[in-house]
């Protein structure tokens, strides 16, 4: 990309480090050519609590390993010894950034396995909560991409606005971060009085933010230099690695569960997820910025179309001993990071036999990140990681 090759100091890595017969890198740390650099878990640049084991030569990474497990709480084990209703407080903590998708997936899975229809009002409210969750997550992530390049201003504004969304969450659901709003059969409350007005006020502020962040980040010469042509996802990797969501969309693949497998009331909403055909950090950030605008628009649509009132919960069996016959299913929903799926197996008792979370970060943060970091500059590691929007708790659960 750099035309003036005098300044291009990237060395040619096709020859060394040498590879052995099986194609593994031969990295001899004692040769003084390489340094092993650990990033994380105590590291401000790493998303969440995970760590990267980097082998670097100069400023360049020649080998990367993702280490996870710092947040492992054994959710899947814990849920196997909890009743279905008790799984809810547990499962929402599997991803702290957007807990609502856990709630929804588990509830939808239980409903599918035991054949419960959710009232329409509850469906709308669920859609609203899921979109709000996406919004608050994007408000952190979109400017967060600037944050990885030390452009902290956007993060400051974004986190403030996210807090306003959390206030609305608190009003609607009673919880600030962990909402516990979606339960099997329905949701836990109608919109409070004046909610639509306050939501619109907040959305106006976000509209303003969208413009500001465009000025600050996306029209920023330095940001462009840092983010363009770095951290490229090749289109052929999409299927090879199982990339989903915005990361796949930026490479030209339309992967959006809301469109592909419409759930809740998404078929009644008018939206078109964006795709791009060149996936570097800048485009991925830009795509998320477009997603942010789309989410704001979706929330406005929901606010306009949501019924005034209605049943919030279908009658369910007594939650204290709700048994589900032996069966299995896979439930997916579109989180801000991509397809978020629950593989659920019931065995006829009041406790699930197995609930397996398939989070997008599982592939993004491990196999894909390890692959993308090779030959990257160590200064870009945090940026690449954030641009994939990894979330460690959903990897290790």
């Amino acid at each position, binding site marked *: 990309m750099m035309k003036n090759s005098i300044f291009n100091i990237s060395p040619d890595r096709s020859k060394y480090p040498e590879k052995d017969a099986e194609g593994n890198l031969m990295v001899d740390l004692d040769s003084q050519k390489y340094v*092993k650099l*650990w990033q994380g*878990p*105590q*590291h*401000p640049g790493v998303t*969440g*609590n995970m760590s990267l084991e980097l082998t670097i030569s100069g400023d360049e990474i020649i080998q990367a390993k993702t280490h996870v*497990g*710092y*947040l*492992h*709480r*054994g959710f899947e*084990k*814990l849920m196997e*010894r909890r009743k279905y209703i008790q799984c809810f*407080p*547990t499962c929402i*903590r599997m991803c*702290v*950034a957007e807990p609502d998708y856990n709630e929804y997936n588990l509830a939808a899975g239980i409903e599918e396995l035991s054949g419960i229809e959710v009232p329409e009002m509850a469906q709308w409210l669920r859609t609203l909560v899921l979109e709000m969750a996406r919004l608050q997550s994007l408000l*952190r992530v979109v400017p967060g991409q600037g944050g990885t390049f030390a452009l902290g201003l956007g*993060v*400051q*504004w974004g*986190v*403030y606005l*996210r*807090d306003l969304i*959390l206030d609305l969450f608190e009003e609607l659901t009673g919880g*600030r*971060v*962990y909402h516990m709003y979606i339960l099997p059969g329905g949701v836990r409350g109608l919109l409070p009085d004046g909610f639509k007005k306050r939501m619109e006020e907040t959305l106006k502020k976000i509209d303003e933010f969208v413009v500001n962040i465009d000025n600050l980040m996306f029209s920023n010469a330095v940001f462009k230099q840092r983010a363009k042509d770095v951290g490229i996802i090749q289109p052929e990797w999409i299927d090879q690695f199982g990339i989903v969501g915005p990361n796949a969309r930026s490479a030209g693949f339309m992967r959006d569960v809301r469109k592909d497998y419409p759930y809740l009331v998404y078929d009644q909403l008018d939206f078109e997820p964006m795709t791009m055909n060149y996936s570097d950090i800048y485009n991925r950030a830009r795509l998320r910025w477009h997603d942010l605008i789309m989410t704001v628009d979706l929330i406005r649509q929901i606010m306009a179309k949501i019924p005034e009132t209605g049943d919030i919960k279908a009658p369910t069996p007594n939650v204290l001993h709700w048994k589900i016959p032996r069966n299995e299913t896979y439930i997916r929903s579109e989180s801000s990071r991509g397809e978020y799926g629950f593989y659920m197996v019931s065995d006829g008792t009041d406790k699930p036999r197995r609930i397996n979370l398939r989070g997008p970060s599982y592939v993004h943060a491990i196999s894909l990140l390890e692959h993308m970091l090779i030959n990257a500059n160590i200064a870009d590691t945090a940026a690449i990681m954030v641009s994939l929007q990894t979330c460690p*708790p959903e990897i290790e659960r």
Partner: protein
Amino acid sequence: MTNETNNIVEDKLELEDKFLAPENRKRQVTTPDGTIIEVDPLRDYFSDARPQIYRPNSIPVIENFLNWARAESLWVLGFGTGCGSIELPPLTTPRFDAYRFGVQMRATPRQSNVFIISGYLSVKTLKRVVRSYEQMPNPKYVIALGSCTINGGMYYDSYNTINRLDQYMPVDVYIAGCMPRPEALLAGFNKLKELIKAGKAEKANEYVENFDWYKANQKKIIKDWNMPDYNW
């Protein structure tokens, strides 16, 4: 460190046992709760040197003044150990702006005074937390967030998370909640400031005094003691 080097260390140990300084030899220690445990300093302690007790300044006026400065300048280690770390960004951003109260985030344990244990600790993280905690200079303070640090919280029956933080490191302030809101965290900082100004936040010395007991507890659950081979 590879297994090979481990073995070498072990061999050395046997040879050099009698040449070791007394504080580095294997010995039996009585813990505060009365049980007797065996301690092998060379294998059990992370730090090169056993931590020391640093007594407060003997002149009350000076100590009070220094404590005032310590209280008003709380540098927090940026280590998100659990869910609670999601509430740290709001704390340092416009909504709550903890900077106003002298609370700042630092990226390295060496320069931090406050360790916020933001919720549950998996065993794997605990190892890093202990390491970071030991790297922090004296005086240091620990704020424990949420149920998980008090009695296991949600994860009381998990095989991979600890139940009681006070078994592994001394804690100054506990904040109830799952997770506590930023406001509660700010109130926690206020409480911590009170404690520091009153000279009651000497938990770092407490850690040293009961070092063997804490180490025994840590050792009981952290089975893999290998750390990256440089001092990070």
